């Protein structure tokens, strides 16, 4: 796994075109976010509120989920619980089979990526059509989303034009954004018209009213939730909030952090299936609530903060590692800082542990996260879990990253640094064997000239200069 990780990192760093594309795009998103929060005090107030709303929700998660189920059911929304991805996939395919749907149109949903839903349904002969433009591009390219919010952010216009040309050779080649969008729109219109079922994610599920909130900019989400006979919404159990009046705060934090918009073009509040006498809307609305390890995460007071996430993607945009590596090299559904804390907890440290080391702990994510998830602190915790040094926690794969050589090195390091006498021994040893250093830190010296040891250390210089401890 470590070797695979290395190769992916090397390949990603060598891909200059993609790096230029994401660098440009993310700089743009960072600037837009900054412009969207001109008043620092207001931003911090909003973050306080956002953090409080999410923290309260997670503190009484079982109660809120029970209320959500009750109120959704009262509205006519059918609620399904899925402990695992497999259960969720089966629920969804059962619903589709019941309606004899041969095709599913999809709005953007990262949880569906987590489920591996497309592959699951396609194996059953069900066609899956992504209707979010970015998702569609990624689907046509047979890739996975590169960014949790902007799935095709790594592709420039020319790459998209070439992709469309390859997939639709009958159409004239164009690099014009409007023309490309028009092509996608034509294509999707046909699909919308024939669709029996639509699937979307959920940004927030409101417990007190049983309302599902969904924001988007293209209107495809609204089509997916209103045009087909059946609407299936999938989400993680952590997306629940207590009250409707908490929604505006979270929505504005979400959209401003994500794209710098004060509000998205479409704000969908799904309340119920079509009632008698109503002219549009789906006849059935299903809500799939996925656990997939979330209750376990929620049980740990420190790690629980991971679940505050509102999936704004801002931590990706601001991450110096993500901006160079991009979303695919992580090899996980959720990349970047949020992926670094979430994936090792979902998949376990044995499978996704590399991600916890892929951070310089610079704190850029911490600085901007709208719900103040202490990402560097959680990475630090997960590193400790990886080497088995945490508490008796439930993180899967705990201790799986312990490696005897590393452990021996840190034990020796601690032995040398815990005692001033031994430390002095170490420093004099180092100055006498200074040439050894480059070999000890070989990875470092590949791109840097190794530092030179000072002939006299500070301990000695301080003493000679009269700086003593009395």
């Amino acid at each position, binding site marked *: 796994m470590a070797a695979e990780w290395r190769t992916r990192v090397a390949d990603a760093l060598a891909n200059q075109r993609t790096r230029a594309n994401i660098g440009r795009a993310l700089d743009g998103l960072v600037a837009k976010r900054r412009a969207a929060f001109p008043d620092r005090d207001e931003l911090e107030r909003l973050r306080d509120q956002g953090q409080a709303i999410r923290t309260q929700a997670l503190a009484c998660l079982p109660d809120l989920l029970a209320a959500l189920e009750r109120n959704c059911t009262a509205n006519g929304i059918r609620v399904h619980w899925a402990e695992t991805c497999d259960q969720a996939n089966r629920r969804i395919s059962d619903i589709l089979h019941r309606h004899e749907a041969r095709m599913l149109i999809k709005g953007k949903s990262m949880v569906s990526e987590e489920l591996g839903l497309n592959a699951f349904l396609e194996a059953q002969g069900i066609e899956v059509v992504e209707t979010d433009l970015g998702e569609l591009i990624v689907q046509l390219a047979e890739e996975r989303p590169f960014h949790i919010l902007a799935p095709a952010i790594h592709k420039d216009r020319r790459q998209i034009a070439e992709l469309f040309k390859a997939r639709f050779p009958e159409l004239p080649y164009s690099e014009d954004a409007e023309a490309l969008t028009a092509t996608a729109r034509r294509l999707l219109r046909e699909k919308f018209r024939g669709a029996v079922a639509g699937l979307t994610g959920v940004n927030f599920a409101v417990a007190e009213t049983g309302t599902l909130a969904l924001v988007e900019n293209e209107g495809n989400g609204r089509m997916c939730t209103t045009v087909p006979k059946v609407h299936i919404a999938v989400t993680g159990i952590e997306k629940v909030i207590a009250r409707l009046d908490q929604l505006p705060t979270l929505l504005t934090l979400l959209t401003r952090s994500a794209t710098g918009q004060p509000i998205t073009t479409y704000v969908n509040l799904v309340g119920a299936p079509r009632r008698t006498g109503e002219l549009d809307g789906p006849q059935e609305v299903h809500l799939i609530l996925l656990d997939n390890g979330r209750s376990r995460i929620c049980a740990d007071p420190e790690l629980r903060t991971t679940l505050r996430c509102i999936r704004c993607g801002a931590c990706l945009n601001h991450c110096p590692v993500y901006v160079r590596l991009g979303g695919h090299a992580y090899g996980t559904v959720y990349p970047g800082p949020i992926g670094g804390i979430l994936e090792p907890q979902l998949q376990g440290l044995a499978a996704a542990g590399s991600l916890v080391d892929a951070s310089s702990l*610079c704190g850029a994510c911490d600085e901007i996260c709208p719900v103040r998830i202490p990402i560097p602190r959680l990475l630090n915790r997960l590193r400790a879990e990886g080497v088995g040094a945490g508490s008796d926690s439930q993180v899967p794969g705990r201790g799986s990253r312990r490696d005897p050589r590393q452990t021996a090195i*840190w034990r020796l390091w*601690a032995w040398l640094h815990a005692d001033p006498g031994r430390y002095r021994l170490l420093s004099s040893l180092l100055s006498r064997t200074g040439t050894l250093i480059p070999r000890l830190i070989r990875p470092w010296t590949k791109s*840097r000239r*190794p530092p*030179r040891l*000072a002939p006299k250390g500070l301990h000695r210089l301080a003493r000679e200069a009269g700086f003593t401890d009395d």
Partner: protein
Amino acid sequence: MRKPDAVYFFGTCLIDLLYPQAGLSAMRLLARAGIRVRYPQGQTCCGQPAYNSGYRDQARVVAAAQLDALPADIPVVVPSASCAGMFRVHYPRLFAGTPDEARAQALAGRVYEFTEFLVRVLDLRPVAPGPPLAVVLHNSCSAHRELGVADAARELLDRLANVRVLEPDHADECCGFGGTFAVKEPQLSAAMAADKTAAVAATGAPLLVGQDCGCLMNLEGTFRRRGSGPQVKHIAELVWERVVVNI
């Protein structure tokens, strides 16, 4: 805080072994400001490398030795925001629930990053003219984000006569050091350092200063490997040089 009579100086292991002149300059500046500087010979390392690698037990053993070395209730001045951050932010967590918890909390409350101490506590206004100089200030992530003291280093430079501070592109972005990150993820770290050094070089400044020798070691090493780039120094060295020139 009132100006104290005496402070501890915690030099950091990196400065002890590789950049002692930075530590000496900082101590001399403090002494020049009328402070008695105590340098405990028992100090070694704040424990951060092990802590950030997940080896908390090993970090705690080393950290406890620093608690022993810095017992008196006087400020501890640290010429590194990242080590100061380790004391201030992470010690209370590392020792939570252990018999050393109270000592760790007390220490956390009296630790100052060097430029923060000069500017915020001493309000030092060095009489330090000198030839005109353009300089880039690289704020470490710890100074900027963890401790929020980056403005102190900037203010210190602004108080020096004839010194002009240039701002590189993406100034707030990490240089790619990250302690053991640079060794564990050498390619990523190198890619970050390459961009940072390019941005610094593009300003044309002949000198780069910062408050963390980890970042400076990373950037200097990258510049030297390429065979070009500005001179690199700890901010204490620059200030001290300009003060001495003035004698």
